[in-house]
């Protein structure tokens, strides 16, 4: 058996119980100290004392922007109202991200307990979990967890004899990406269109049903109980100067050990990719990591040793986001990556404001032209100018950050854009119009296997003589390469012209 030589790089706080217990049996959670923190808070602390603990701990929101959690709770607690709400944002929508789903499926009670603590601190007796309808297993386990907690008296009326009441209900999202934005999320819960509105007013003063509402992400809630039980000093001893604790990342893409990881803030990309992730698939060359989803950007080789925290990621032109980490190797075309995210944004834009609705569509069209080999140098300036306009004028976080993939790939991979536009080449061999299938005359025996399988009749040649592929007809379906038994066909950046 292999034994790890060094101390493990991962530290699991939010994921402390994931994979350790049966999420459908509350007794297993109780064994692992579930609801102890709630009991302690209700018995020993005033709401303000509990908020102070969170402020001291330095916990920041794990949904992406990194707003200090204690401060958020304090603002909500100071709003005066007869009714307040605690909302858990489980509308995880970034491509490649599955942190929240795993927490809800593996340890639902950690989130329920923290929501009750939040309710006590801000003076709310109702909690709502806004969860995507695409997460049926997480929904099922949450429902079981809520009903078991009610049965055991850990939610509901007069919790643990303290006189504090708290109940939690589920709200289903229909899967719109913009509904992860808190104002859009609240509108969606109210039964209105999932469209964002200007802040202020912030949800802490006027949120769900115009009542003060505190919205936190799943992972943020999952960090609360350990902070209460082990103390703020313990938590703030982990991480970097301004980013405390740990962060869960969903490692995906061209990496050997795809998985769910949790590392202390300040861990470098190199440690994550090569030590925890086991390196790049098939020993290919590392090119970039995309973090922060469609609002984030790419980190490249020069960022490999940057300690990851909120500030450093912003400085590197990306952002923490919710924690998706997509690893890319030398076969990924960065222009196509930017195009992929823009395509996602175009589909997910709610259409309320013009810069996002129309601007992103235009950005996408320019990128599409470039990947088809029809781009001109002027397009690169247009991309940049339009991106700035969208960033400055869009209504909500989705629109303001939507050009980030363009900024970041232009900044880090300008030479790839240049090659696409000027040399009409895609070095990654990804853009279909910019590479060619070529038959090596010396290896081709003229068996005609390729000619027979070609669906568009792009291959010509006499029997037992070398064949030829007409690149103008070829649709790059890859059939011929798979059929050729002599490895005579390869992908080349230059077409072969028949003389």
């Amino acid at each position, binding site marked *: 058996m292999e*034994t790890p030589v060094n101390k493990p*790089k*991962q530290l699991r706080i939010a994921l*402390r*119980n*994931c994979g350790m217990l049966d999420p459908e049996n509350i007794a297993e959670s109780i064994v692992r100290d579930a609801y102890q923190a709630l009991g302690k808070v209700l018995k020993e602390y005033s709401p303000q004392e509990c908020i102070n603990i969170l402020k001291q701990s330095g916990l920041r929101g794990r949904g992406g922007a990194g707003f200090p959690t204690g401060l958020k709770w304090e603002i909500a607690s100071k709003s005066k109202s007869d009714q307040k709400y605690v909302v858990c944002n489980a509308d995880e929508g970034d491509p490649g991200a599955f942190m929240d789903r795993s927490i809800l499926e593996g340890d639902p009670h950690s989130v329920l307990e923290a929501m009750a603590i939040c309710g006590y601190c801000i003076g709310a007796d109702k909690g709502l979990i806004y969860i995507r309808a695409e997460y049926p297993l997480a929904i099922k386990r949450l429902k079981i967890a809520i009903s078991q907690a009610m049965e055991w008296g850990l939610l509901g009326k007069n919790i643990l004899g303290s006189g504090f009441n708290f109940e939690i209900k589920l709200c289903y999202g229909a899967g719109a990406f913009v509904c992860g934005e808190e104002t859009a999320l609240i509108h969606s819960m109210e039964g209105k269109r999932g469209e964002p509105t200007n802040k202020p007013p912030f949800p802490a003063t006027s949120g769900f049903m115009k009542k003060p509402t505190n919205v936190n992400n799943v992972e943020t809630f999952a960090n609360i109980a350990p902070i209460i039980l*082990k103390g703020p000093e313990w938590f703030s001893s982990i991480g970097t100067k301004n980013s405390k604790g740990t962060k869960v990342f969903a490692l995906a893409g061209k990496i050997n050990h795809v998985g769910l990881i949790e590392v202390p803030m300040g861990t470098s990309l190199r440690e994550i990719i090569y030590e925890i992730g086991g390196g790049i698939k098939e020993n290919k060359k590392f090119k970039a990591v995309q973090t922060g989803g469609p609002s984030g950007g790419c980190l490249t080789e020069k960022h490999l040793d940057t300690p990851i925290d909120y500030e450093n990621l912003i400085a590197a032109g990306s952002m923490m986001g919710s924690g998706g980490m997509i690893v890319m190797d030398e076969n990924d075309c960065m222009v196509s990556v930017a195009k992929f995210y823009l395509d996602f944004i175009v589909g997910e834009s709610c259409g309320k404001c013009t810069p996002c609705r129309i601007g992103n569509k235009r950005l996408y069209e320019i990128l599409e032209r470039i990947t088809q080999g029809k781009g001109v140098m002027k397009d690169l300036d247009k991309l940049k100018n339009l991106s700035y306009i969208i960033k400055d004028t869009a209504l909500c976080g989705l629109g303001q950050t939507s050009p980030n993939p363009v900024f970041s790939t232009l900044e880090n991979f300008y030479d790839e854009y240049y090659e696409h536009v000027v040399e009409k080449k895609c070095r990654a061999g990804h853009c279909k119009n910019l590479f060619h299938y070529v038959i090596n005359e010396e290896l081709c025996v003229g068996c005609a296997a390729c000619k027979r399988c070609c669906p568009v009749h792009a291959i010509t040649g006499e029997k037992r003589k070398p064949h030829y592929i007409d690149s103008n007809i070829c649709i790059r379906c890859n059939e011929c390469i798979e059929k050729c038994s002599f490895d005579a066909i390869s992908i080349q950046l230059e077409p072969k012209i028949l003389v």
Partner: protein
Amino acid sequence: MTHIKSLEQLTSKRDELKSNLSRLDDPNNSEKKVQIKVAMATCGIASGARTTMDFLTAELSKRNIPSVVTQTGCMGYCYAEPTIEVKLPGKEAVIFGYVDTKRADEIIEKYIKTGELTEGVIPRNYDTID
């Protein structure tokens, strides 16, 4: 039905449940059992964890091995799903990856019966808080 009315009751309930668990884990206790956890989050189920879990439950009782097989959430080793954790009484828990029914059979015959490790062991690569 359990209804907990105070923090003290919660703590004593926790301790009671804990001691039940430690009886299962005590190699000298007659109630000892092999404890197996199958990672059954969406990712695990999609990779076939339910088949693995059904197989383990059925085969362990057929082969007269006192055991409890439970489901858990994601263990984080998505690349090696389905994953299971096996805890022999009094021993450190061991995680196995790529557990289809063939490997599950191997694990029962080799690791659970004789304590000899089989292929597919995943070294635990994290610290947790307790």
